[in-house]
Structures are given as structure tokens and as C-alpha cells.
């Protein structure tokens, strides 16, 4: 690993400063909302002239925001619960099938993550409309699961490729049916990848706004949808407060999961 780093001092300083700049470029747009959220002003202004917690109070005090938060968390959880097992089964099939058929199925399975979100949302709107599911939590869940399956598969496919399939055959020969072989042999050994897939599926749903804007409504509005709407209607620093909280939560979850994997 270490030979990737240059030996001489100037080169090393250049390398480290370049990396620091890239990191700053990645992080700053996210971090700029943090001071905004503690502003006491009614407007989004940077830097804030005075500080307060009033926008956090506004957020937690609002029934609408709280309902949206609840919806988003429920939806994220349900998405992970549905998408990860489906993704795992799909990945097992792809892994076993091999050849052109598997490559084709894999391609189809990954399209939702490649197609522009807006197209997917429009298509989904018409499909759900035909079933009278627009505006229901179930409708949004379907949309999020469609997006989360490819995400889960991207994590699970390489893990399965490293898995020794003879173990499943051994379990089968010893008397395990498919469900027990998957549950008792594959799942425990793919624990870490499954945890990552679950997290990624959860975050995919949590972060998703386009499908939610098209399909979710009223009580079932998700947090990102409500944030878009409120940005359009009235700009106040509540958005900054929510964004800050959001970032903290997501970073915390990712950190906890990655640190657990390391240990």
C-alpha cells in the first residue's frame, strides 16, 4: 500500500493538499447548510448575523414535518425489508445461471439505477394510476423497492461470486431444503454484505425525491418531497435545520455500520 505514496517531501505535500481540496469540494456544499440552520434570520443568508435554535423548534413543532419524517423512516425500513431479500434471491439466480442469460437478467435488473429518475417516476405514475395506487404508501414503496433492488444487487453480487457454492450443495445433501440452505449457510456468511445492502436500500429510499413527488401525496408525503415543496413555496431556514439533522443521522448510521464491519 505504502509504495503508492511518493517519497520526496514536496510531492507528498502536493498529494496531501490535493486530496484535502477534493475532500473540501465534496463536503463544503453539504456543510454550508449547518451555519444556516442556526441562523435567527427569517431568510437563508450566509453567514448568519445572529444564531438561534428557532428553526429546529419549527421543525419539531410542526405536525406536517413530523408526519413526513415518520413516513420517510417507515418507507425506508419497509424498502430495505422488501428489497434486500428480493435482491439476494435475484443475485443467487444470476450467480447460478451464469452465461448470457445471467448477464441479460443482471442488465435488466440494474436498469432502474441507470434510467433517468424522472422517466421511471412518470412510468411508475401511469402503472400505479391504472391500479389506483397513486397517493398510497404502497405505491411509493413499490417505486422505492424498484430503485433499491439494483442497489442491493450491486453490493450482493460480488459477495456471492466469492461464496463457495459447494457449501450449499453440501447442506442440501445433508438434508437442507432451499430455504434452510439459504438461511443457515448463505445468509450468516454474507452478513456484512447484507448489512451494507440493507443500509444502501434504506438510504436509497430515504434520499429519493422524484418518485415521491409524483406518487406520494398528503399524509404519505416523504421528507424530501416536503422539502422540495417548501423550497418552492416559501424559503425559510427550517430546510437548513432539516438538512443538518438529516446529514447527521445518515453519517451516524453509515459510521456505525462501517465501524462495526471493521471490528
Amino acid at each position: 500500500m505504502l509504495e503508492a505514496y511518493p517519497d520526496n517531501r514536496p510531492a507528498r505535500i502536493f498529494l496531501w493538499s490535493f486530496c484535502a481540496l477534493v475532500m473540501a469540494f465534496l463536503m463544503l456544499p453539504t456543510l454550508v447548510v449547518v451555519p444556516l440552520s442556526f441562523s435567527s434570520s427569517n431568510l437563508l443568508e450566509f453567514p448568519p448575523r445572529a444564531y438561534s435554535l428557532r428553526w429546529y423548534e419549527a421543525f419539531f413543532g410542526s405536525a406536517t414535518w413530523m408526519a413526513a419524517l415518520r413516513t420517510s423512516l417507515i418507507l425506508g425500513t419497509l424498502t430495505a425489508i422488501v428489497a434486500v431479500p428480493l435482491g439476494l434471491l435475484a443475485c443467487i439466480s444470476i450467480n447460478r445461471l451464469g452465461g448470457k442469460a445471467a448477464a441479460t437478467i443482471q442488465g435488466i435488473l440494474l436498469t432502474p439505477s441507470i434510467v433517468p429518475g424522472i422517466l421511471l417516476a412518470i412510468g411508475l405514475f401511469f402503472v400505479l394510476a391504472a391500479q389506483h395506487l397513486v397517493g398510497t404508501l404502497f405505491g411509493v414503496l413499490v417505486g422505492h423497492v424498484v430503485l433499491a433492488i439494483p442497489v442491493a444487487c450491486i453490493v450482493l453480487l460480488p459477495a456471492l461470486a466469492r461464496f463457495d457454492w459447494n457449501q450449499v450443495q453440501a447442506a442440501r445433501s445433508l438434508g437442507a431444503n432451499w430455504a434452510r440452505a439459504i438461511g443457515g449457510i448463505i445468509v450468516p456468511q454474507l452478513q456484512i454484505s447484507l448489512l451494507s445492502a440493507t443500509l444502501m436500500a434504506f438510504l436509497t429510499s430515504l434520499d429519493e425525491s422524484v418518485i415521491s413527488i409524483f406518487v406520494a401525496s398528503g399524509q404519505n408525503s416523504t421528507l424530501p418531497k416536503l422539502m422540495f415543496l417548501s423550497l418552492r413555496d416559501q424559503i425559510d431556514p427550517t430546510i437548513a435545520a432539516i438538512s443538518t439533522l438529516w446529514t447527521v443521522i445518515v453519517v451516524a448510521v453509515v459510521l456505525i455500520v462501517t465501524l462495526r464491519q471493521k471490528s
Partner: protein
Amino acid sequence: MKSLPITIDSVRKTFGSYVALDDVSLDIQAGEFLTLLGPSGSGKTTLLMALAGFVRPDRGKLLLGDRDITRLAPNKRDIGIVFQNYALFPHMNVLANVEYPLVLRKVPKAEARQRALDTLARVKLEGLAERNIAALSGGQRQRVALARAIVFEPRVMLMDEPLSALDKNLRETMQYEIRRLHDDLGITTIYVTHDQREALTMSDRVAVMNSGRIQQIDTPQRIYDRPSTRFVAEFMGEANIVAPGSVRRMDGADESREALMIRAESLHLDTELVGRDGVALEGILSAKAFRGENWLLTLALDGGQEVLACIPAALAGGCTELAAGQRVTVYAPAAKVHAIPGAIA
């Protein structure tokens, strides 16, 4: 434990245009130790996997006793399998691996534990029950795999090149132990290998396979001494296959019209080691090599054909003086000269 016979009835399996099993039929007796021997791609593993239930034959039937298992799910076959890479479960310790088939069969906990411990003792692994799989040596893993495959008292055991990952000494020990285990349990065993010595050492009968067909099925001795095809003759060891014209019967009797197989170690320099009805081959010595326990002589017969003679060092007094280019005659006893119909040398 009651073991069962196996009947393989014209089983065919193709993968695309590749014929892995070409109408294979084979009867294995209850309690028999049968080895499927062949080069890679001969179909031996495909046949084993068909018996295990992981390969579905295109046609043909597989019977366990008188029960048709051709389409039975692998978990309902009650067949113990030892895989080439052992396929132990790395997330369970030794005991949990061995208990696994019993847990699946809902054997009460205490009984399952006792049976697993007894089986571990049988394969000489007492004291290692709590070990992790990663902490075991290759030979110990092999034993755990064996224990796991027999603990639920299956009526048939399948072994897919189980010793190929072990070093030579350990392999020989395990050959002996697997055979002993088979004799103790009396379990019908089908053993796959590409190592002809292993097949000869361990088996009641050997089925030699090539390109999806069984070439010959016989006792180890008959497979070695009386091969029915040129392929079997050459696969089983250093075989000279010579045209009948290059061989002279020492008693002057009529010569065979068929190609003859003479193993390199059946040839002698000394007429007295060969009976009156033996045969003689004459040619020019083209090379000689000392190999420790024996000398390897290469002779060019007058017909241009090459013959290898393997002379035990203890009997090879004359070998040191022989020089390349010299005319040499080698002799073989009649019992070691075997005609192979249809194999034109």
C-alpha cells in the same frame, strides 16, 4: 445400518453440444466400494453429481434400492457426500458442522451431540469438537467432512476426489482409513478419482470412464492385467501395445492376430524368469535410464515401434553394461501378454 444397491440405467446428460454422459449404465451392489476412474472431462464427476441430485439427467433412470431417485430433491436422497474441497461450513465449529444433518432431521439435542461426538471419535478427531474450521489442518478438515457425511447414517456415500488436496503421505493414510471406515460401516460407496493407483488400492471394482462412457468395469487386478480397450490399458499404467507380428512365441506356437498389451514391468532381460510359453521381443536399445528402484529401457522394435521395459534394479545385473545402439531381446511370461481386440497397434 442397511446399505442399498444403486442402479444407473442408460443415463444421458448433455451440456449444449457437449455429451457429458453417453448412455451410462452401471449396477453397484449394496456395500460395494466402487471407484469411477477417468481423466478430467470423462464424465465421472457429472455421474456423481447426478446421483447426488445436482445434475438432472436428460434421460435414463437412477435407482437407490428399488426406489427411483432420478427426480428426487437432493435433500431427500439420504446420501452422504464428501466434496473435493470438503465444503465445510466456516461459520460453525467442528461439532456444529457434524451435528448439522442431525439438527435438520430434528434429532433431540442431547442425542445429536452424542452421535456427533461418537462420529468424531470414529474419525479420530476427539478433542477437536470446539475447534473452528479455519484452525484445522487439511487432513483434519478431510476427517470432519467424512464425519459430517456419515453421522446421519446414509445408505450411500459419494466421494468426489476427496484426497486430491492432501500431500502424498497423508493421502496414503487417508486411503487406508476411508477404506477401513467403509468396511466398518458396510456402506455402499462411490468414489471418484483420476489417480489410477488410488483406484486400484481402494476399490472392490473400478469403472474406467472416458468421454462420457464406461470403458470397462472390473476388479482392480483385471482392469490392470486384462484391459478391454487401448484407452484402459494406457490409462492404468505404462503399457506397450504391439502388433502381433513383432512378438515371437518362444515355444513356436501360432501368434495372436490381435494387438497385444504387455506392461513395461512384465518384460525381463532373463529368459529364465519367463516360462517356456513366454514371448520375446527384439529390438535396438535406444535409451536407458536408472530410476532408483528400476531401470527403464527403451527399445526400438524392427517394425519401428517403441517398447518400454521396466527392469527391477534387483534383477538388472546386465543393465549397466548395455549400451545404446545394441541389439537387445526382452521376454514376457504368457500370462502377462494380453490381447486387446480391435486395438491395432
